């Protein structure tokens, strides 16, 4: 039996006024295992602490109970104190007789009875305590960023600047992501390329950053501090190291009919191509679906004109295996498909376009060289109508229930830019609400209305149809309570955004949780917004929820700082209050595995010696680096094979027992 010491704090008169300390001390002495008990005025004072240390030495105590204030106040203090005198810190338990007793009960008799019960519960618990030792795990000082858009790049740059190596894995042939497609940014109207491309160059030239483009992460194993990732580098059929990006191959390629993804299919590209002028790496890639050589084994023109002999049709996918200490998800977003909104006629009329398509049409490097023309016939439009909330705030299967957050502002930006460049064009905007929280955002919106004459209509659009060479937008104006018909040359749909389809796969690979909309879930909505509940996984950008560029960059930096905070450590100390399996009892049923929010439970086929029977059994194994000690598994386990150290079944039952005893 353990030798237990009990110390009852007066906390001045805070406790002593309503709890009879002497009675508590006397009652404690009667409990099994208690070899000494005493009261003291202020246990947390240096004198009180030294009293405890002396008693531990004098009575050779194995366990200590402090009856004092809430453990949330001073549990750490007393545990540290125990450690100073060589007692395992987890052999100290606190009975909360201040917040839970003396402060709320005015009747001294009642207060004393309760304090005794609480002390007894703590004594019962500590007598079942076992010394717990914190574990350690090592940290691989390298980070992986999944996604090379503005979020991923910013995170990578910040981590790299702190002196750690970062790999950025990008699925496309170039980094840059969605932001590279955007023309101007709100609310300042500076050009997106002018602020993004320098960052891309910085990332490419940074000694600590390796860009792994045209690649996808295939699997991730391990846990915080030591993840092992398998990355598939797709064959681009062009040697990245030798290609100079001269573009000669593109000019000779006879296969010119592939849709140009970068311009959202508004024009065509060749089979060998560089996605856009400022692409990084500035290296060509061959589209194996349309390349004549790769599909029909003919042609090969590009190979013959390439002066540096960079083209290699025999190139195979390459598998890269690397270890990382932390992983950042920055998989970004894509606009939803608006085909299902048949009343808006996106699939029927070429001049009904999405906002991202409009970005390309307005961009100087876009398919029209920045000249805004009707897609159908290249003529100059005189009336343009914008429709907001296409698919946002939509509970039906066609859309998304959430607000996409950025559409109000970019629609405003588009309207303003058009009115600025082509004052002859009438611009109407149908809106449900205009949401402009953000620095200088509402001012921006008001400028569009007041200075640029954009006509905002409160209402939604019922249908868009063609009549006499014009598009008729039939909508409601809720302010005048009219049904209105607006003749337009172009209709622009502010389509909702959704997480990139890859996010779901990435999340399940990382055992990071996602919500019903496939956005990754943060560890805490307010206090840990850039961390995933799974340790070592961080979130950057829109993969966590809709965001505009400034917010994305801010979150990217925050994610980076969390990564740096992790990588700077040499060892990770793991809490000893974690779940543990009794191998002899475990049936391997997976109940605990299914319930664990951290993916901390795995299974191993282990050779078990069960009272002489040796056999290989499927046993649950808790990874101490991932387990956070919530104990959900210990309840899911029917046999009690899974238990939570520090709060074992038996300990809690002993507390129940002590409290219920009359």
């Amino acid at each position, binding site marked *: 039996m353990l030798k237990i010491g009990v110390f009852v704090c007066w906390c001045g008169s805070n406790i002593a006024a309503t709890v009879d300390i002497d009675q508590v001390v006397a009652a404690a002495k009667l409990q099994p295992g208690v070899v000494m008990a005493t009261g003291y005025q202020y246990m947390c004072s240096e004198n009180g602490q030294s009293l405890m240390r002396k008693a531990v030495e004098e009575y050779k105590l194995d366990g200590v109970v402090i009856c004092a204030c809430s453990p949330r106040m001073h549990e750490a203090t007393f545990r540290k104190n125990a450690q100073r005198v060589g007692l395992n810190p987890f052999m100290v338990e606190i009975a909360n007789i201040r917040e839970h007793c003396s402060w709320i009960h005015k009747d001294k008799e009642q207060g004393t009875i309760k304090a005794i019960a609480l002390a007894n519960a703590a004594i019962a618990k500590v007598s079942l305590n076992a010394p717990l030792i914190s574990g350690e795990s090592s940290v691989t000082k390298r980070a992986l960023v999944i996604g090379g858009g503005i979020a991923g790049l910013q995170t990578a740059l910040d981590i790299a600047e702190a002196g750690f190596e970062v790999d950025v894995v990008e699925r496309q042939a170039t980094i840059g992501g969605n932001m590279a497609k955007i023309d101007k940014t709100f609310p300042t109207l500076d050009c997106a390329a002018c602020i993004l491309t320098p960052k891309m160059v910085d990332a490419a030239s940074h000694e600590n950053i390796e860009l792994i483009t045209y690649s996808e992460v295939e699997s991730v194993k391990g846990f915080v501090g030591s993840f092992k990732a398998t990355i598939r580098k797709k064959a681009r059929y062009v040697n990245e190291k030798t290609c100079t990006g001269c573009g000669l191959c593109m000019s000779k390629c006879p296969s010119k009919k592939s849709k140009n993804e970068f311009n959202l299919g508004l024009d065509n590209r060749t089979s060998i191509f560089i996605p856009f002028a400022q692409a990084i790496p500035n290296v060509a890639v061959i589209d194996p679906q349309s390349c004549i050589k790769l599909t029909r084994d003919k042609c090969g023109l590009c190979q013959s004109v390439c002066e540096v002999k960079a083209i290699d049709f025999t190139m195979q996918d390459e598998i890269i295996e690397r270890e990382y200490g932390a992983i950042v998800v920055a998989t970004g977003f894509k606009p939803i498909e608006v085909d299902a909104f048949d009343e808006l006629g996106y699939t029927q009329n070429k001049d009904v376009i999405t906002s991202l398509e409009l970005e390309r049409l307005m961009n100087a490097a876009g398919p029209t060289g920045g000249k805004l023309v009707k897609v159908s016939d290249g003529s100059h439009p005189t009336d343009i109508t914008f429709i907001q909330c296409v698919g946002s705030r939509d509970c039906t299967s066609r859309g998304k229930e959430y607000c996409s957050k950025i559409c109000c502002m970019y629609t405003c930006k588009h309207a303003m830019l058009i009115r600025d460049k082509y004052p002859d064009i009438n611009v109407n905007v149908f809106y449900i609400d205009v949401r402009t929280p953000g620095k200088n955002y509402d001012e921006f919106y008001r400028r569009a209305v007041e200075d640029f004459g954009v006509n905002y209509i409160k209402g939604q659009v019922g249908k868009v149809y063609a009549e006499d060479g014009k598009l008729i937008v039939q909508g409601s104006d809720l302010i005048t309570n009219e049904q209105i018909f607006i003749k337009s040359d172009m209709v622009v749909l502010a389509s909702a955004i959704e997480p990139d389809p890859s996010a779901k796969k990435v999340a399940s690979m990382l055992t990071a949780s996602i919500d019903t909309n496939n956005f990754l879930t943060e560890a805490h909505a307010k206090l840990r917004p850039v961390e995933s509940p799974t340790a070592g996984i961080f979130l950057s950008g829109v993969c966590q929820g809709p965001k505009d560029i400034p917010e994305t960059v801010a979150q990217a930096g925050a994610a980076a700082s969390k990564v740096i905070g992790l990588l700077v450590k040499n060892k990770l100390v793991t809490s000893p209050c974690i779940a543990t399996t*009794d191998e*002899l*009892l*475990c*049936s*391997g*049923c*997976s*109940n605990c595995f*299914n*319930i664990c929010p951290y993916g901390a439970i795995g*299974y191993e086929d282990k050779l078990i010696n069960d009272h002489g029977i040796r*056999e*290989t*059994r*499927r046993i649950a194994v808790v990874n101490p680096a991932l387990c956070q000690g919530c104990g959900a598994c210990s309840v*899911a386990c*029917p*046999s*009690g*094979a899974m*238990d939570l150290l520090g709060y*074992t*079944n*038996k300990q*809690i*039952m*002993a507390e129940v027992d002590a409290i219920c005893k009359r």
Partner: protein
Amino acid sequence: MQGLEKKIKDRAIELLESGKVDGIIGWEKGQFIYDPTPAVFTKETGLDNFCYNNFCGANLSKYLVGKITSDKKYAVLLKPCDTYSMNQLITEHRVNRDNIYIIGVGCEGHLDVEKIKRNGISGITGVSVDGENVNVGTIYGESTIAKSDVLLGKCEVCRGNAHKISDELIGEELQTPEASDRFEMVNKLEAMTAEERFAFWKGELSRCIRCNACRNACPACTCRVCVFDNGRSGIDSKANASEFEEQMFHIIRAFHVSARCTDCGECSRVCPENIPLHLLNRKYVKDINEFYGEYQAGEEADQRNPLVNFGDKDIDPTVISDKEGN
């Protein structure tokens, strides 16, 4: 039924002879026609004592749990309702599917010999089901009795003749009995007053002798060591120290199998005191269906059961605590 027994037997011999399986888990003739017991048949034992008749109600899926670490391959005979348990065992990795050959056998409902005897029939030598009736041969002659009166409790609420998992089927054309509403008794209990319910359960549970038959027969109760035998659980007990322990045992037993219980009815079938234990399990099934949507454990393998799942708009326990009435 006799034709089916022969068919199964022939196929079993074929499987053993060809070496496709090392053993067959089936039913062995007992002393009387109505007491067949589960048994493992091998090349050595032969199948002379094999039987499949209307008293083979036992669910054999659980017998594979003990074979999980064996490298031998076993064929198992499963009636349609037993296959739910098999799926559940596969989901929970309690059996090794690779070493199991599942023969789905047809079923026309199994009979409860106690119910037949209660009708004053004894000396039973044979039975045959004839549509809605059962002809019982006895040493005193033949008598006829309505099938619905003598079905096993679990067969009264039969879920049909579809095997949810199998490698081959024999006699699947047999028609399973018409099912009545399985929640009828649960509803009835719910409609009682709290005092009546309490009296009901007091009456039933006071007969419990803690023989653990319910636990041993249940195909969901497959823990290597039961929590009530686990010295570290804090509630382990050999003999009952207090009167409270039986009810705790039964509540926890039903709770631990809730959302995993396929409602196979074995607990009540094997209870020597005839305690309707399935009514506890079925209450959980009903609640789960009502609160979290229809769910049938073992409908398919690798389902995520409702207790290791959640919805953010689940009902709150206060709905129960604050429920009107008693």
